[in-house]
């Protein structure tokens, strides 16, 4: 190519980073649960969808955005706690297939129940940020997207700090490392399982509100869950940092594919490019960039 269009690439990368931050936040919910409780949650996308529906429902009833977001967070924490208690706790010790099937079932139920409660129409969540595009030098972005990126960064930072530095975070990682040893140290492992689900609920709620504000709310939002897998495989199933880096990379890859390949082949590469990355990662480094390798000693 003679004149490589740096400006165009820059726009794609910026957009990719902003979407990637959202992916990172949503993947964080997945990683929290996987790390602390060893459950692969196939319903993460549906969590996000359900949260968006709650927020849209509350906002639709005439309450303001902040109330809607708060209700969504509280609702998702309750849902997280409830599901852990009712669905997952009885499955402890039943093997990975039982748990995976349970979360897949959960995903279908949540999608159905959301439509039953909220109806099939697409609803809107309006962030109180106006709609004048904001100019960032070369690119100008919709304010909802920028607000979403800022919110994601704040929450990613808070959760990272919490996990890596706080005592509760250390205990949570201890549980992830060995449940038996954690118990022996006086850590109430059950309580940390519940906490992980509740935190995943919070992250899903934030994700649902922001994502819903950008795309509109219907059960298609759950499709964001499909982005979680390439992100966490790339970053490592149990790594917070991995979720963040993985999210950013997948967001950027997706946008570059959309900008450069879709016009050539007529579309569609945006959707499978992340999975292509995932397959390559699985082949060369199955534990992901930051995933824990089993520590081998002689």
């Amino acid at each position: 190519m003679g004149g490589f269009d740096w400006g165009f690439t820059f726009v794609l990368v910026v957009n990719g980073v902003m979407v990637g931050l959202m992916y990172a936040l949503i993947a964080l919910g997945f990683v929290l649960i996987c790390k602390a409780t060893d459950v692969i949650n196939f319903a993460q996308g549906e969590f996000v969808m359900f949260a968006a529906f709650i927020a849209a429902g509350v906002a639709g009833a005439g309450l303001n955005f902040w109330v809607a977001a708060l209700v969504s967070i509280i609702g998702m924490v309750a849902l997280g706690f409830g599901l852990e208690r009712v669905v997952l706790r009885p499955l402890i010790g039943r093997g990975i297939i039982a748990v995976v099937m349970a979360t897949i079932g959960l995903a279908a139920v949540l999608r159905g129940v959301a439509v039953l409660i909220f109806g099939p129409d697409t609803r809107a969540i309006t962030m109180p940020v106006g709609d004048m595009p904001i100019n960032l030098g070369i690119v100008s972005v919709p304010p909802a997207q920028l607000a979403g990126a800022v919110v994601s960064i704040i929450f990613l930072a808070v959760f990272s700090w919490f996990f890596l530095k706080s005592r509760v975070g250390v205990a949570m990682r201890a549980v992830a490392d060995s449940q038996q040893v954690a118990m022996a140290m006086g850590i109430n492992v059950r309580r940390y399982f519940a906490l992980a689900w509740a935190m995943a609920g919070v992250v899903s709620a934030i994700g649902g509100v922001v994502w819903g504000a950008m795309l509109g709310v219907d059960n298609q939002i759950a499709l964001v869950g499909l982005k979680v897998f390439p992100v966490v495989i790339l970053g490592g199933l149990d790594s917070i940092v991995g979720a963040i880096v993985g999210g950013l990379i997948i967001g950027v890859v997706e946008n570059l594919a959309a900008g450069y390949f879709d016009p050539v082949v007529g579309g569609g590469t945006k959707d499978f490019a992340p999975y292509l990355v995932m397959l390559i990662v699985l082949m060369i480094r199955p534990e992901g960039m930051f995933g824990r390798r089993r520590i081998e000693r002689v």
Partner: protein
Amino acid sequence: MLALNNIEVVYDGVILVLRGVSLTAEEGRITTLLGANGAGKTTTLKAISGLLHAERGEVTKGSVELDGVRLDRLQPHEVVKRGIVQVFEGRRTFENLTVEENLVAGAHTRHDLGEIRAGIERTYATFPVLKERRQHIAGYLSGGEQQMLVIGRALMSNPKVILLDEPSLGLAPMIVEEIFGVVRRLKEEQKLTVLLVEQNAALALAIADHGYVMENGRIVLEGPAEALRQNSDIKEFYLGLNESGTRKSYRDTKHYRRRKRWLS
């Protein structure tokens, strides 16, 4: 005083592993529980710490008491809060956490941040090598360092009683000597009560005040460490050979009951 009164432990509802075990660990003393592989030593410790529940094991008869208060229905975290902590065999660090994070996790049942800080410093004073390694990932420490870490981590809960499961296993003699020296010092200076499980009788009896020998889920011999050290059965058994050069167990020796009476 920690007391087990005639406890029976069953795994999976059917596998009877402990068949009426009674033992006591006096306050500020080192009590050792000896026995071959599979005798039921680890199960005994788990019956005390409440960790049996997580392995579908259950105390079906008898009781476990600390200073007269029953423990055998409590969850593991409640047992730790009451001042008993178990150190697993095999140096089970949180291998993906740093040394210092391991210690912080060990202090989970405590809430005063100042005390936790002081506890960490005390641990570093006890095991200076851990201070040098404080930011290292525990999984990459040497075996000796890991053993020091898991003991230091257990002490972070400020226990009255520590249950040590085969701390000497697989470690160089010099390291074992250092670790046992620390255990003895903790007993003397902090009046820590120690229940030490070992297969290495010579080592354990050298620092213990009192000892029990377990076989097949039963206590078959007990006495002051001094007496056990002199006991020819122990010598014979833990050398693994009798005069004719074959392995034997107490169950095979005719005079074991006589010995037992003589010792108790």
